[in-house]
């Protein structure tokens, strides 16, 4: 994959970076050199490999649990005065037109 000047402009835009012309030229060079090297990942067959976004999924989240239980590890005791306890998972999902045991389901949000 070759990065073009237009790509650099587009990405700088997304990243909210106001690059000078020298910076843009340098970026073009560096990105191409790095992505060239990174391309070797395509040598690997990962068609049946699940992605790993979070190491602690490996040992914290019990995929066998559902609802509030599954996310219990991420909750905390209320430590500030006046805060009420959060609504339990199941109750929060109860009114949803479409949900599974854990999440609300909606049409695709991210264009890929």
């Amino acid at each position, binding site marked *: 994959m070759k990065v073009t000047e237009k790509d650099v402009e587009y990405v700088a835009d997304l990243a909210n970076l106001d690059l000078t012309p020298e910076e843009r030229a340098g970026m073009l060079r560096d990105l191409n050199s790095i992505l060239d090297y990174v391309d070797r990942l395509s040598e690997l067959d990962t068609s049946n490999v*699940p992605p790993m976004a979070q190491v602690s999924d490996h040992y914290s989240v019990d995929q066998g649990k559902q609802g509030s239980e599954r996310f219990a590890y991420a909750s905390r005791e209320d430590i500030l005065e006046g805060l009420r306890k959060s609504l339990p998972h199941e109750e929060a999902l109860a009114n949803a037109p479409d949900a599974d045991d854990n999440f609300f389901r909606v049409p695709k949000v991210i264009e890929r």
Partner: protein
Amino acid sequence: MDLAALTIDAARSAIQERKTTAAALAEAHYVRIQKEDGQIGAFLTLSKERALEQADRIDRMAADGKPLPPLAGVPVGIKDVLSTRGVRTTAGSKILDKYIPPYDSTAVARMEAAGAVVLGKMNCDEFAMGSSNENSAYHPVRNPRDLNRVPGGSSGGSAAAVAADMAVVTLGSDTGGSIRQPASFCGIVGLMPTYGRVSRYGLIAFASSLDHIGPLAKTVKDAAIVLRTIAGRDPMDSTSAEVAVPDYVTELDKPVRGLKLGMAKEYFGEGLGDEVRQAVETAIDRLKQLGCEIIPVSLPHTPYAIPTYYLIATAEASSNLARYDGVRYSHRARGVKTLSEMYRRSRDEGFGAEVKRRIMLGTYALSAGYYDAYYLKAQKVRTLLTRDFDEAFQKVDAIVTPTSPTAAFRLGEKSNDPLAMYLADIYTVTADLAGIPGISIPCGQTSEKLPIGLQILGKHFDEATILRIAHAYEQAA
């Protein structure tokens, strides 16, 4: 007072036995910093008021004959990516030049609750992005063992301070090797705990699934004491694990005889410097003499670790650094007329070249049309790399490798070639990706008297075993 010989226990007992005071210890270190740090550049900010207040507290406890907490009066340095309430915290960046955090990181709070005296904030590569501390927006750090060379990075200041006896122990952070590699370059101990072992609350985030906090110390025991102090579940960090914290210190003296150590051939191939290879192989031989069994293992996806790391880390960084927008706490560009102009110019002025490069790379890897080929692909390879370790750890208790392919390089040597700099992380990034713990300990030096590091990698939450092995080697050396 011989600062060079000062360890945590030595400091604490000297205070308990009234041979010295916490205030005197702190002062002695500030004198040393005044004398040496002009050349080295390890500190960005000194926190004298806070240090002396804490020292005073400890001294009053000692005078009252009260038992002292585990880190009582111990002078420590905190890498400038860890928030310290009321004390300027820059992450090594100009964009946070004036930032004063309104809260303490959990790791710092735990250190101070245990009596540690925070001397100041340690210089580092900007936003922890770098392997030489040359990316600090303020000034580089020089290796105390050879001032023409880098201390390593990104926790270069943390490593140099311990190596030069300007602090007894420091906290650093490790995302791709940033605790272990500088420890190796400076000839000290650097421990990266399992991901989730230490709360990241208050750590200025670089890559949230890869960041780890850990100690840099003069001895393995000191690293164990600090780990015992800072480890453990924190409700403020949902990725901190609900795993009990063993007493790492009492575990240290358990025998290593019979432990199985893996030697992965991928870490001893091309690119490894001859003198480093020799020192590491000699060290492994020593461990064999101490009764460990050396077993060949393979971590076949190792050649894919650097590309995987540089896609995941930069992607996560591009998201984490989006918050530096000139609105709430960072540098704001002058003379801007629109909101958009404010964001862009503030960021362009405040961020250094390497940070911008990584934000660009990460944004690109996540952008429409490229997400699958880059970011998602990297996440899948991350699974493969983790499986390599899972499989190896079925056969062995720990894996021994060099920490870095070379000893400390010269300032300026790699700073013009980003890719060459990235490749220096080859032996350290794998542990960050898999979330396993790793320790680097000194195991000799090159013919130019530059330190060489031995790395010991362990299973998730098995810091006790790698500390034990490291301790046994250190005691026998």
